[in-house]
């Protein structure tokens, strides 16, 4: 028993030949966010505060698909969504945000300051103003990389799950490989944490899918799909939203532990291997007893974790023992 934390910056077809100038800043971001989360846990912050803090940091980082750096809708705009849940099953979710700097914090306010669980679009933006959270012009969230991604997706006339390498300027086209539909898959950021008393929390945030239809909602804000926590574990998932919704991924990890008596690791591995098609999902999860797991069935997943007994890991592709 002890605290544990895990976070992710998205699972997908992350090219193994990612050049250092792309890889290093992302690894540094993961390291930085892990540090922040660990410090918070070590100073006895409640896991709910910890996951919010870490996800805010990931949202602010332009290289991940959440907050600043969110991928773009088919009309070139940003529509962000987020969700937060604690082990007592209090939860909050938001969708369709266009000006809110930190969607995860608005999700928390929905949970704590309204009689509802989920607010979206205009209603959510209006609530944000009422609450006085930080809002900016939505151009703040748009990065040149994502403008390029959208352009490519439109050219290829498909909806991506975000992480294609932008086409190299020297004309070499890096085609997303691997799964049949050619979509490369990264999306979403998330964090799960547990303290020494078994208090759990999960939070997830995203810009969604590149070239998504305006108004498209993914798995992230859907309790039980992209985000879930109860007294046994906390889970945050990433990947192809439509598959994660159908597979009720986050809920199923907890359900397998409860109904089949599987361990956290076994339950998470089962869901990732059996409940969702290959190349579509990754997740991070912690259990009430301080275990952590980060399985994925994609080429890679930006991730980091640490436990009180000193273990820590920052990685992108499968580690040797997996």
């Amino acid at each position, binding site marked *: 028993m002890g605290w544990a934390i895990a976070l992710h910056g998205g699972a997908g077809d992350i090219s193994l030949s990612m050049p250092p100038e792309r890889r290093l800043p992302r690894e540094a971001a993961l390291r930085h966010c892990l540090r922040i989360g660990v410090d918070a846990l070590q100073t006895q912050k409640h896991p709910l505060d910890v996951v919010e803090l870490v996800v805010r940091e990931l949202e602010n980082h332009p290289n991940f698909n959440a907050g600043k750096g969110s991928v773009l809708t088919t009309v070139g705009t940003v529509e962000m969504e987020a969700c937060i849940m604690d082990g007592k099953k209090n*939860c909050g979710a938001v969708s369709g945000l266009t000006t809110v700097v930190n969607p995860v914090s608005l999700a928390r306010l929905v949970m704590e300051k309204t009689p509802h669980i989920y607010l*979206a679009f205009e209603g959510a933006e209006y609530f944000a103003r009422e609450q006085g959270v930080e809002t900016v012009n939505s151009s703040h969230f748009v990065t040149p990389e994502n403008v390029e991604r959208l352009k490519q997706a439109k050219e290829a006339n498909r*909806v991506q799950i975000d992480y294609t390498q932008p086409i190299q300027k020297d004309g070499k086209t890096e085609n997303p490989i691997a799964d049949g539909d050619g979509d490369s898959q990264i999306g979403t950021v998330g964090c799960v944490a547990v303290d020494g008393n078994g208090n759990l929390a999960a939070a997830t945030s995203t810009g969604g899918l590149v070239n*998504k239809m305006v*108004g498209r909602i993914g798995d992230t804000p*859907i309790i039980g799909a992209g985000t879930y926590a109860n007294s046994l574990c906390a889970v945050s998932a990433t990947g192809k939203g*439509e598959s994660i919704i159908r597979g*009720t991924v986050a809920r199923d990890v907890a359900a397998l532990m409860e109904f089949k008596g599987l361990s956290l690791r076994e339950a998470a591995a089962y869901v990732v291997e059996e409940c969702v098609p290959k190349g579509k999902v990754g997740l991070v999860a912690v259990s009430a007893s301080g275990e952590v797991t980060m399985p994925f069935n994609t080429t890679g997943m930006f991730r980091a974790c640490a436990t009180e007994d000193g273990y820590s890991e920052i990685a992108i592709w499968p580690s040797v023992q997996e």
Partner: protein
Amino acid sequence: MGRWAIAVHGGAGVDPNLPQQRQEEAKQLLTRCLNLGISALRSNLPAIDVVELVVRELESDPLFNSGRGSALTEKGTVEMEASIMDGPKRRCGAVSGLTTVKNPISLARLVMEKSPHSYLAFSGAEEFARQQGVELVQNDYFITEENVGMLKLAKETNSILFDYRVPLETCSAGAAAGMDSTLKMNGLPISVYAPETVGCVAVDSEGRCAAATSTGGLMNKMTGRIGDSPLIGAGTYACELCGISCTGEGEAIIRGTLARDVAAVMEYKGLGLQEAVDFVIKERLDEGKAGLIAVSRNGEVTCRFNSNGMFRGCATEDGFMEVGIWD
């Protein structure tokens, strides 16, 4: 060759003082919808078509809280949501924030079948509706006089009827006082219990299950508020084993991932439909009040609720048919 079964609901949480006439109307509507579904199943329509057509019928009738007759937002407008799920491949579609789409459940189906996504909302959903050429109407088509009255009451008592009861201490009519102190608005008795959702689950003779749920949401809700009905795993779920549609306190249903839990308990614990449903209603709602209807691929059907009443009906191929409101 399996046996078909079907269940419909018009919401959980019923005013114990509901006038007899209203009770009769509700039972007649449920019966009519059940019969519609039964004919469809008898003519071998797949379960997914059956649940859609039954919910369309419920949406079109102003009696329950969906489509026409939807509860009103704090601004007096209607924002509808719905979801549908097809058991065999667990395909699903959902919509929220609809203001002009006559049949939200059909748009949810189109999202499932004609879009690359599972869930569309607000202006994006309305735009998709226009592209798909579905029937659109003015927002006031959905608004009924009764619900305008209900909204006024909710505002007067400064409450969101999210546990579908006007808080007794703030309700001047003191509905707790006695059975005969029904609230009146313009001389007509109105229920202080906000109406709830509608839904249908069915299993066809091929053993395919499907589920569909549709609602206007909570009376006096904040604009942009999304409830359990469009959330796969909460208000609606279907897989190879079963199909479920829930109704009641949205928050409790979401936190309890009610619809998915019935199926998960069957899948992971090997419980039968009835046991799974009983377990979920008993163990997964904490202090929340809700109900659900469910079918299994073996042709079983059940309905359970911990609320005060639930408008429901169910029927099976071997001739069983029942429509009810109370325990």
